[in-house]
């Protein structure tokens, strides 16, 4: 194997060719060729016959390449990753010397999910040669002449020279190393005695059940009688010489004491020393009775500080080699050639966050000349190398990373090492973080405490006899009593389920005589199971899902922080590493223990029947499918509901399948696999007769065909995860595993085409399958199956029908709920940020209390929590319609409350804003300053008033809700129930309204004020004065004035008549004109029908009319023919107009039109020219303040541009000069008359 890697490093073989070579072995049944990761350069795809030849000679080794690579990387990193949770790993080191055997190696005993530490049996020295030889082979390749590291320690390079170190730990004589690696010869061994850096295996903080979160595989000596079963080898990230200590003080009885091959001698010595060292340190360390409990032993306190060594891209040694290996590794990940994607990511992140190299010397950092392309020199010579390698791999895996939750992305994007090594990747991650909406809380919901009563199962009609009914009722009572007791006491130390409840349960089960009683009880059991455990997070908490709402009462701004804090406080520190064994968390534990304690065959059988039925039912549930055309647009909104439903179904299925698996395989669960082949064969022969509890293979095939793998596979994995050791060897189940492997390899994430599975769907399947391949009962070699076996089941997945697989049914939340272990990535990164070394394998979270007042919030929270529980309990005892009614009322009243606040408080504030703005405009002049600035000033004044919204909202809900509840509930509802319902409705409505208001009131006020400001400013704009004093008609007005449209039409007719052409008999009577102006006055005073444009036109028409009057152009109809208007009549009409302009028009009147060239031109054309009316009009305008002298002057000035008859210009000048020169006259009326008189005389004289 090493030969392959070396030829790769020497660039004899291209990476692409190598991956094709590996993949061909793995994917011989694949129809499509593996797609190329995007990062690969084009040149990587040259197919070189030389390469093929080089590789074909190694054909038999093909399937061993990936395990070899993984082991290689783990071992290489051993110097860097002694701390932190170990990377659990499982890959068989299948070697050519020991061909794969069907059986899994022996492993931990009963309750395998918590048994990670396989006890190893004593084995003979001779037989134990095997693992060491294999290890050597893996590392060094089988090349002849290469010396096996006879005395090399397991975790370190062999071939280090035997320089002894003064270091108190595990120095040992070195075997003859390869001469070509002088630097290695000098490299120090890991400080094995440093418990900080080398925590004992399995030192991850144990869960309450004493589970070991991850399995560390120890060198397993192989005994002769087990020669057929392949010994388990492993790649572990901390070196295998990190062994659990305190196993025994007697070396000979230790599991590793005997039979270690000579090659492992130093290993044993090391362990000895380690043990001694440790016992010195920990005198009080308890000696557990069995290896299993070891992990549960308290961890020794440790001293020492592990500060992270800064990583520097410039100090990376052998970049090229690292790049190449990163590329191969990434390609294997991309092609799903590794068993567990997330495990590899975890490993890579471990490398990224490696704190420091163990005991490196400066000289180690220098690259060894000539060693670049060989595997002789360590791959990771420094932290810089590790980080470089990790970043390289992460770059290739960006797509997967981008689908992780927001928190993980944030931590990745903020990782300074990543920024330092690849700013580009950091930028992409930041962009992905910013675009991500996948906020996933790692907090576990509180476990449910409430017991639900199921009135429908109480129904007498369901029972054969009164007695059966009565018995069942009693049993139900016992069941709930037991459940309640469990809830109260299961967390007490020293409480034991079996001791506490076992006898009561068995007594109860004994009463279930009739089959029908069993089925009733099973229905109750299953219903309770689903209700309690099928919370969105799958671990429990049906009714206390309200807890976040309780939090939300504390105010929206602090909500986020509170949530985060809550999450930090309640999130389990570690759920057991990236590959935890199957567990029964929370309430599930009760049901498991109940089944175990009951130990009733009938019950189990009925339960299996019931679970199978329910699984079939849910699995074939037709989940609604949207139209394919709905993909864009509002699809996101529509999908929320669909996703939620899918998640509910999936989580229910997983729960049911887990319990089905648990019950179905319960009779076969033994402490460990059968020790001998013969025994195993006989068991196999026996078991193969037993039909499966549920035909999961058919369901899987069906699911694959219907493209519903995303629903079927996750629950199937749950089912299989509880299988016993024999199950994977049975033909029936082996074929299932084969199918799953086939599926796993086909889920290439980079493949994105029409009809492909959605990315997150694939990710979910990869995560659950990867997890399945890592759990203890699944044989390690299963993943690296021999070629051809994958051909066994071809599933025709190419169906035109759009199945669930192609739909975005999985979101990050569901992914993390199903696979909480993915959250380990985030925890790993977080522990790097928090600066805590991964001592004790956990992720120490440092929470600094910044204030003690936070504690004050505790009692109310509890009270509210209690209130919520009380409310839930209340609803449980009432008909469902009551709950619906209360929730409905709360929802509506809450919504109405918001509307009410909008219409009252916000509207008031807007009015205030308008008046403030008016003041502002008055004081600051018309401009009033920058609108944005004005808005800011107003908002800063008004927004604080928004705080009233909460009080008012509360009052509103308080006032309105009870009545609504009362009206909707039956009259006969008892008073106490009614008042409770009312109070709950008030509370819920207030909560809803206040949540909205506190989050949005400021924005709402701001928006409304902004609209008001722009409205006011716009109105203020062109004609502020007119707008300012706009008035309606008087109160007494009955709106009988003529319509504006009629008046415009009438005046237009007069204008048309005056302008001509007209028939000789056409004309207007002076009375008509007077009447018209009178009507105009009425219309202008009654403003009912007047709109601004109409008024503007009326104003303009009135000015035109005045011009025609002044120019004496209006043909007056009168007996016998048309004639001109009399002077007195004209002046009367002009007076009317002047009064209209002054008093009645509310829009500006374009009086300057009177002096426009066109209107003056009318005068110019008349002979003789009569100026008196014009002069009269102008004087009146000045006197009434309608026009200023300067304004008139300006108009006259512009007249000079026009072309007039010469005499007209002269007249104009003569006439207007005195008018303009006149000083202001105190008595306008008198002066006006006089002036008109004189002027008229002048005019007449001149003409």
């Amino acid at each position, binding site marked *: 194997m090493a030969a392959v890697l070396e030829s790769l490093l020497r660039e004899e073989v291209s990476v692409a060719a190598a991956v094709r070579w590996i993949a061909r072995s793995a994917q011989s049944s694949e129809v499509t060729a593996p797609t190329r990761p995007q990062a690969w350069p084009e040149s990587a795809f040259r197919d070189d016959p030389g390469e093929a030849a080089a590789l074909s000679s190694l054909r038999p080794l093909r399937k061993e390449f990936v395990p070899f690579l993984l082991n290689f990387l783990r071992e290489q990193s051993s110097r860097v990753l002694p701390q932190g949770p170990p990377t659990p790993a499982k890959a068989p080191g299948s070697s050519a010397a020991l061909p794969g055997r069907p059986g899994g190696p022996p492993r931990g005993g009963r309750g395998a999910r918590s048994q990670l530490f396989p006890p190893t049996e004593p084995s003979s020295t001779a037989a134990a040669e095997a693992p060491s030889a294999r290890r050597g082979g893996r590392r060094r390749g089988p090349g002849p002449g290469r010396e096996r590291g006879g005395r090399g320690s397991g975790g370190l390079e062999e071939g280090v020279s035997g320089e002894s170190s003064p270091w108190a730990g595990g120095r040992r004589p070195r075997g003859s190393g390869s001469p070509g690696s002088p630097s290695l010869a000098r490299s120090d061994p890991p400080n094995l005695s440093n418990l900080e850096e080398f925590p004992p295996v399995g030192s991850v903080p144990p869960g309450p059940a004493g589970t070991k979160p991850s399995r560390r595989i120890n060198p397993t000596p192989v005994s002769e009688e087990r020669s057929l079963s392949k010994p388990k080898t492993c790649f572990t990230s901390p070196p295998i010489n990190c062994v659990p200590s305190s196993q025994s003080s007697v070396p000979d009885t230790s599991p590793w004491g005997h039979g270690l091959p000579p090659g492992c001698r130093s290993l044993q010595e090391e362990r000895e020393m380690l043990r001694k060292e440790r016992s010195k340190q920990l005198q009080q360390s308890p000696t557990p009775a069995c290896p299993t409990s070891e992990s549960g032993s308290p961890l020794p306190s440790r001293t020492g500080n592990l500060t992270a060594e800064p990583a520097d891209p410039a100090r990376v040694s052998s970049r090229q080699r690292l790049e190449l290996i990163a590329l191969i590794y990434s390609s294997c990940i991309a092609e799903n050639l590794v068993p567990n994607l997330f495990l590899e990511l975890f490993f890579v992140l471990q490398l990224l966050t490696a704190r420091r190299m163990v005991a490196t010397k400066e000289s180690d950092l220098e690259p060894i000349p000539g060693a670049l392309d060989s595997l002789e020199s360590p791959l990771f010579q420094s932290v810089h190398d590790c980080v470089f390698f990790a970043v390289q791999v992460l770059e290739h895996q960006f797509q997967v990373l981008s689908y992780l939750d927001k928190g993980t992305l944030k931590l990745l994007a903020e990782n300074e090492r990543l920024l330092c090594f690849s700013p580009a990747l950091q930028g992409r991650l930041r962009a992905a973080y910013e675009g991500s909406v996948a906020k996933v809380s790692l907090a576990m919901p509180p476990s449910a405490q409430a017991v639900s009563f199921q009135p429908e199962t109480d129904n007498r009609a369901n029972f054969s006899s009164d007695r059966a009914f009565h018995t069942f009722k009693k049993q139900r009572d016992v069941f709930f009593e037991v459940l309640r007791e469990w809830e109260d006491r299961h967390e007490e130390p020293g409480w034991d389920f079996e001791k506490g409840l076992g006898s009561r349960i068995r007594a109860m089960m004994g009463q279930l005589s009739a089959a029908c009683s069993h089925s009733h009880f099973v229905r109750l059991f299953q219903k309770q199971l689903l209700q309690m455990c099928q919370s969105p997070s799958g671990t429990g908490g049906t009714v206390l899902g309200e807890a976040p709402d309780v939090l939300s009462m504390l105010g929206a701004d602090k909500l986020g922080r509170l949530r985060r804090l809550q999450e930090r406080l309640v999130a389990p520190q570690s759920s057991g590493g990236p590959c935890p064994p199957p567990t029964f968390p929370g309430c599930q534990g009760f049901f498991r223990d109940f089944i175990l304690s009951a130990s009733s065959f009938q019950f189990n059988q009925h339960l299996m029947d019931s679970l199978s039925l329910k699984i079939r039912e849910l699995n074939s549930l037709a989940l609604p499918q949207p139209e394919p055309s709905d993909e864009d647009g509002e699809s996101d909104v529509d999908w929320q509901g669909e996703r939620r439903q899918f998640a509910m179904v999936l989580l229910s299925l997983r729960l049911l399948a887990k319990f089905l698996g648990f019950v179905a395989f319960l009779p076969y669960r033994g402490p460990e696999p059968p020790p001998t082949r013969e025994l195993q064969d006989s068991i196999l022969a026996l078991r193969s007769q037993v039909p499966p509890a549920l035909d999961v293979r058919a369901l899987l095939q069906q699911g694959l065909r219907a493209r519903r793998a995303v629903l079927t596979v996750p629950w199937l994995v749950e089912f299989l995860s509880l299988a016993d050791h024999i199950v994977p060897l049975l033909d029936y189940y082996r074929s299932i595993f084969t199918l799953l492997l086939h599926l796993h390899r086909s889920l290439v994430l980079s493949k994105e085409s029409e009809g492909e599975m959605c990315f997150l769907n694939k990710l979910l399947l990869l995560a659950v399958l990867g997890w399945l391949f890592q759990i203890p009962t699944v044989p390690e070699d299963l993943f690296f199956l021999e070629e051809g076996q994958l051909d066994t089941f071809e599933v025709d997945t190419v169906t035109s029908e759009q199945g669930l697989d192609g739909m975005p049914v999985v979101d990050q939340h569901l992914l993390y709920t199903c696979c909480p272990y993915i959250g380990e990535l985030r925890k790993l990164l977080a522990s790097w940020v928090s600066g805590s070394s991964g001592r004790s394998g956990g992720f120490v979270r440092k929470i600094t209390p910044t204030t003690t007042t936070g504690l004050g919030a505790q009692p109310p929270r509890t009270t509210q929590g209690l209130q919520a529980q009380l409310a839930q309990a209340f609803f449980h005892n009432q008909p469902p319609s009551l709950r619906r009614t209360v929730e409905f009322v709360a929802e509506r009243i809450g919504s109405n409350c918001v509307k009410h606040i909008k219409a009252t408080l916000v509207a008031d504030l807007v009015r205030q804003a308008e008046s403030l703005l008016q003041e502002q405009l008055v004081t600051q002049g018309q401009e009033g300053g920058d609108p944005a600035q004005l808005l800011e000033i107003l908002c800063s004044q008004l927004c604080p008033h928004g705080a009233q919204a909460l009080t008012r909202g509360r009052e509103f809900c308080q006032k309105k809700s009870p009545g609504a509840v009362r009206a909707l509930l039956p009259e006969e509802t008892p008073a106490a129930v009614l008042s409770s319902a009312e109070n709950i409705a008030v509370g819920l409505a207030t909560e809803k309204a206040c949540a909205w208001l506190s989050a949005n009131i400021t924005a709402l006020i701001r928006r409304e004020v902004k609209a008001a400001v722009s409205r006011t400013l716009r109105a203020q704009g062109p004609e502020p004065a007119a707008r300012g004093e706009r008035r309606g008609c008087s109160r007494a007005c009955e*709106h009988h004035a003529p*319509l*504006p*449209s*009629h008046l*415009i*039409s009438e005046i*237009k*007719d007069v*204008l*048309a*008549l005056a*302008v*001509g*052409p007209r*028939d000789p008999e056409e004309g207007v009577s002076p009375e008509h004109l007077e009447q018209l102006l009178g009507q105009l006055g009425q219309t202008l005073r009654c403003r*009912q*029908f007047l*709109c601004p*444009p*109409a008024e503007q*036109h009326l104003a*303009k*028409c009135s000015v035109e009319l005045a011009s025609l009057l002044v120019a004496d152009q209006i043909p007056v109809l009168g007996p016998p023919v048309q004639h001109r208007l009399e002077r007195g009549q004209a002046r009367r009409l002009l007076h009317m107009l002047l009064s209209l302009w002054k008093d009645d028009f509310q829009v500006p009147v*374009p009086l300057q*039109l009177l002096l*426009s*060239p*066109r*209107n003056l*031109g009318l005068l110019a*054309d008349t002979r003789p020219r009569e100026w008196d009316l014009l002069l009269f009009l102008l004087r009146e305008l000045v006197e009434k303040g309608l026009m200023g002298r300067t304004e008139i002057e300006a108009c006259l000035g512009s007249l000079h541009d*026009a*072309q007039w008859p010469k005499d007209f210009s002269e007249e104009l000048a003569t006439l207007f000069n005195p008018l303009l020169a006149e000083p202001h006259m105190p008595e306008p009326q008198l002066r006006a008359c006089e002036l008109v008189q004189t002027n008229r005389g002048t005019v007449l004289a001149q003409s």
Partner: protein
Amino acid sequence: MILTKAQYDEIAQCLVSVPPTRQSLRKLKQRFPSQSQATLLSIFSQEYQKHIKRTHAKHHTSEAIESYYQRYLNGVGRNGAAPVLLDLANEVDYAPSLMARIILERFLQEHEETPPSKSVINSMLRDPSQIPDGVLANQVYQCIVNDCCYGPLVDCIKHAIGHEHEVLLRDLLLEKSLSFLDEDQLRAKGYDKTPDFILQVPVAVEGHIIHWIESKASFGDECSHHAYLHDQFWSYWNSSEEESLILWLKSPMFLKNLLLEFCWIST
């Protein structure tokens, strides 16, 4: 009073190729004394608009424009005080205001360096005093005040009628205590296309459920009714079961005199 289709057609018949002038309207009034001026004007305007829509294009060819302009120039050259432009419009059977626009545009093209913008021309038509040439200003003004179907004054009259009828309708609704939302309220609620009034409680009129009322204050012939529905409401209401009431001219009176004064159309 409801105008029958026959009556409408009869009036329309009289309006074929009649210039839209004061004189024409006067003659129409004499012919149909029972109809109000507003009714006749509305029908006249509507029929004339149809006519203009048909013939509009031929007046806007460059040859036509050029020939009109030359004729105008010749005319005013002979006598600037004569109604040259108005006569020209009547002669070629085109609306005087529109003719004024053509000539003004052509004139400005000749006298200004840059082609005149639409807003400049509109502004000059609204206030001919802004026209740099005094003679043309008079001619344009004459066209506008004499045109009873087109021009800024007519537009304003139509707009005013629409507004007045809305106010009338609102008063009637208030009088009848019918709860409604008006256009402004609807817009504030975020409706983009709004009828004048949405009845908050539907009413039944002659067996038809009325949800909303739109006052058009013009004559609802079949064609405009359909075009109107299409443009404005179907996109919004989109429910074939809903019925609407579109009140055309005079129809706000319907609540006072239900059978006589309105024509309702249900969709």
